[in-house]
């Protein structure tokens, strides 16, 4: 364990933890966009900037900085506050349509951006390039279907050559994790259309009720699950119904075999 202070409060953290975790443990909230506890730290949005005041002053991104014994961290140092505000001001200028960014900026006292509007072709931009979708796809799902393309202002996320991805399993984790709702996914009939990735996957139909409920490319998961395939081939509603039926049957069986039913 290492001991450090956050805004003067002592905090004990395990070795390997980050400053952001220490700040959160101290009950202080910092805005973040590219951070997710389940994914590797990335340090791109630069929103979680804090000031280290001991042993020497340094403005750092708390999500990637490891805790050290004796560090003193100030979250409200003027440099840190300015850095957070300017980052939000620039993101507000990039994505003026994003409610999430507007709210985040307002929380830090930023309501307008002096940076001007985005160019017309990017007027409805919602992506802040936090990279959560890229990392969740690679690290958590293991598909690595999307990645960054281009550099500087041309940087964006996409599938290779912007065409239908063979690697995408249509799980939708990217859309789920996206903080600004920039990823468009729609289920239409037996298709799941991942508009943002120019990719469409087939949906699996429930053999019981016929409803479409899971992307076909995820069916390999069935082999990895403990129960027999027929259970997992069902949609969640049918699966629940089946489970309930079994419970009822088992209960009846139990009741019939024991004339005097005792519940323990």
């Amino acid at each position, binding site marked *: 364990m290492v001991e450090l202070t956050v805004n003067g409060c002592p905090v004990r953290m395990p070795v390997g933890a980050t400053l952001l975790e220490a700040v959160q443990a101290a009950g202080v909230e910092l805005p973040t966009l590219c951070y997710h506890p389940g994914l590797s730290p990335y340090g*791109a949005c*630069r929103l979680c900037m804090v000031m280290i005041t001991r042993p020497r002053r340094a403005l750092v*991104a708390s999500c990637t900085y490891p805790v050290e014994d004796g560090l003193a961290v100030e979250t409200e140092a003027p440099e840190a506050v300015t*850095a957070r505000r*300017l980052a939000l001001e*620039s993101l507000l200028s990039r994505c003026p349509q994003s409610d999430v960014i507007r709210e985040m900026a307002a929380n830090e006292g930023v309501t307008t951006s*002096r940076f*001007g509007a985005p160019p017309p072709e990017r007027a409805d931009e919602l992506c802040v390039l936090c990279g959560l979708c890229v990392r969740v796809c690679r690290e958590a799902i293991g598909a690595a279907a999307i990645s960054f393309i281009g550099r*500087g202002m041309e940087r964006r996320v996409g599938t290779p050559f912007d065409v239908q991805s063979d690697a995408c399993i249509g799980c939708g984790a990217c859309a789920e994790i996206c903080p600004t709702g920039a990823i468009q996914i729609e289920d239409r009939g037996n298709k799941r259309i991942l508009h943002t990735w120019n990719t469409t996957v087939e949906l699996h139909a429930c053999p019981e009720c016929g409803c479409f409920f899971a992307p076909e490319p995820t069916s390999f998961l069935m082999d990895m699950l403990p129960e027999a395939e027929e259970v997992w081939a069902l949609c969640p509603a049918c699966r629940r119904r089946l489970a309930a039926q079994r419970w009822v049957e088992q209960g009846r069986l139990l009741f019939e075999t024991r004339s005097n039913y005792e519940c323990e």
Partner: protein
Amino acid sequence: MRVHTRSDLESLGAVGLAAIYPSRLKVSVGMATCGLAAGAEAVYRTLHDEALAYGLDMTLVSTGCLGYCQVEPLVDVRMPGRGRVLYARVTPERARELIAALATGELPAEGALATIPEEGLPPLEGLPSLEELPFYAKQHKVILRNSGWIAPTKLEEYVAQGGYGGLARALELPPQAVVDEVTRSGLRGRGGGGFPTGRKWQTCRDAPGAPRYIICNGDEGDPGAYMDRTVLESDPYSVIEGMVIGGYAVGAHEGYVYVRDEYPLAVERVTQAVSRAEEVGLLGKNILGSGFDFAVRVVRGAGAFVCGEETALIASIEGGMGEPRPKPPYPALQGLWGCPTVINNVKTWASVSAILAHGADWYQAIGVEGNTGTVVFSLVGKVANTGLVEVPLGITLHEMIYEIGGGGRDGKAVKAVQTGGPSGGCLPARLFHLPIDYETLTEAGSIMGSGGMVVMDEDTCMVDVARYFLRFTMDESCGKCTPCREGTRHMYRILTRIVEGQGTPEDIVLLEQIATWVKGAALCGLGQTAPNPVLSTLRYFRDEYEAHVRERRCPAGVCRALIQLVIRSELCIGCGICKRECPVGAISGQNKKPHVIDPSLCTRCRLCHDACPEGAIEIVR
């Protein structure tokens, strides 16, 4: 032949010595990229054909760069018994005359730049020696010690100049002693950061985990800088030798030379050098009979400026996108494939081989306390002498610009110098008394960087300069972190407004805020230094910004939107040259009568201004 022992090295060196100093006439042509760009290839071909035609008994070789790039193509003629002369700005025509003269046993004086003094050769009357030329007088060559003097890929010649003496010595020492020697020399990273090389090596050596790796960073991308290119093109073995020494010191058996693909000649020469070193056993298993193995691979960079940043470079070697990652952990602990890695610049490696050959004390005596050794700068811009300059650390900017550089070009006053490439800062003439060292330059708002030095004169608009460099860093930003991606773009937009005469005083305030933010909050070193051109020009040339936004005036007369071209009728002789030059037909007037420019058509391209034989066209600021 395989080299196993020191005596094998000596016999290899003897072969090289005979090649460098043959008993017959030898003509060397500088054919690094600078020479080739100046037409060295045609000169070489002419020399070859003419020598054949005359039946001249002569050795013709292509060498690397001597540093004085402005006067390329350079031809070095060595005539045993007569002397040795360096000819400058040689054209095929001059080459023909030269061979004709040489055929009569004469060393012509025409076109001669200097004599190269050499033991056993008589001195030549009336010619300065090379070291006396102002351009060379203050230089001290360590990194560029062989550059231009040997055939770059001839291992024998490198060995003849003392090459591989450093490795031979290192392999006789325990590895820790090699690290200590480098630490004691005071060598600091020549890629720009200036981190003590010995300390980096020690960290890597002490780091748990194996294997370890050595990387040579040759991804030089600064506009106007070509030091690393020259070293790789002109003396590749000095770098490879340094890497083997580093590998031995930290316990690595594999090294990578990362060169950008825009340097085809450097890639070619370093690749050749690697295979030649493998051939004789100076790379591979059991080097010099020491039992130490080391292999080198050449990796070509695909041309992203950001790959010069060490973590991005490592990602690129691994096959990933060239993007920096946060540090710590530093590469010395977790580098290539997550293993301890020493990554140093080309010039650092070339210094290492010299340090091990001559000892730490020798190196320490060069330069000043805390900043020992030499640095290479590419001195370019509005300065009389341009080229590659290697100087001991601690010499002043004044010595650099006025003594070596010869001051402003065409007698113009030098206004500022930009050190450290696109992410360096612009220092004003009143600070030219400052010594060139890592700390002083950083304190003054610039950086040592990898060694670009761009001189600017009175005709340079500092706002325009800041915008030029911002354009570069904006285009080259990888886009990963918000401050660098968004910040450089907004700074560029503001600077564009200012040079177009649309700027406001609030713009300057916002510009300064964004620049300070990017410097403090960007993820990697490149982002953190990207605002330096803005911050340093705001610090030293704020009056120029103010003139742009408050008076709508560009004091240097550069920004097109803020100047007007006017023909002074009392000077105009009505020759009509300006009228012919004008691409938009904005100039009218009768023959032999004063002409006039229509400001509504004029695009301020200045072609008329540059063409007017009478200097009658004035730039109204």
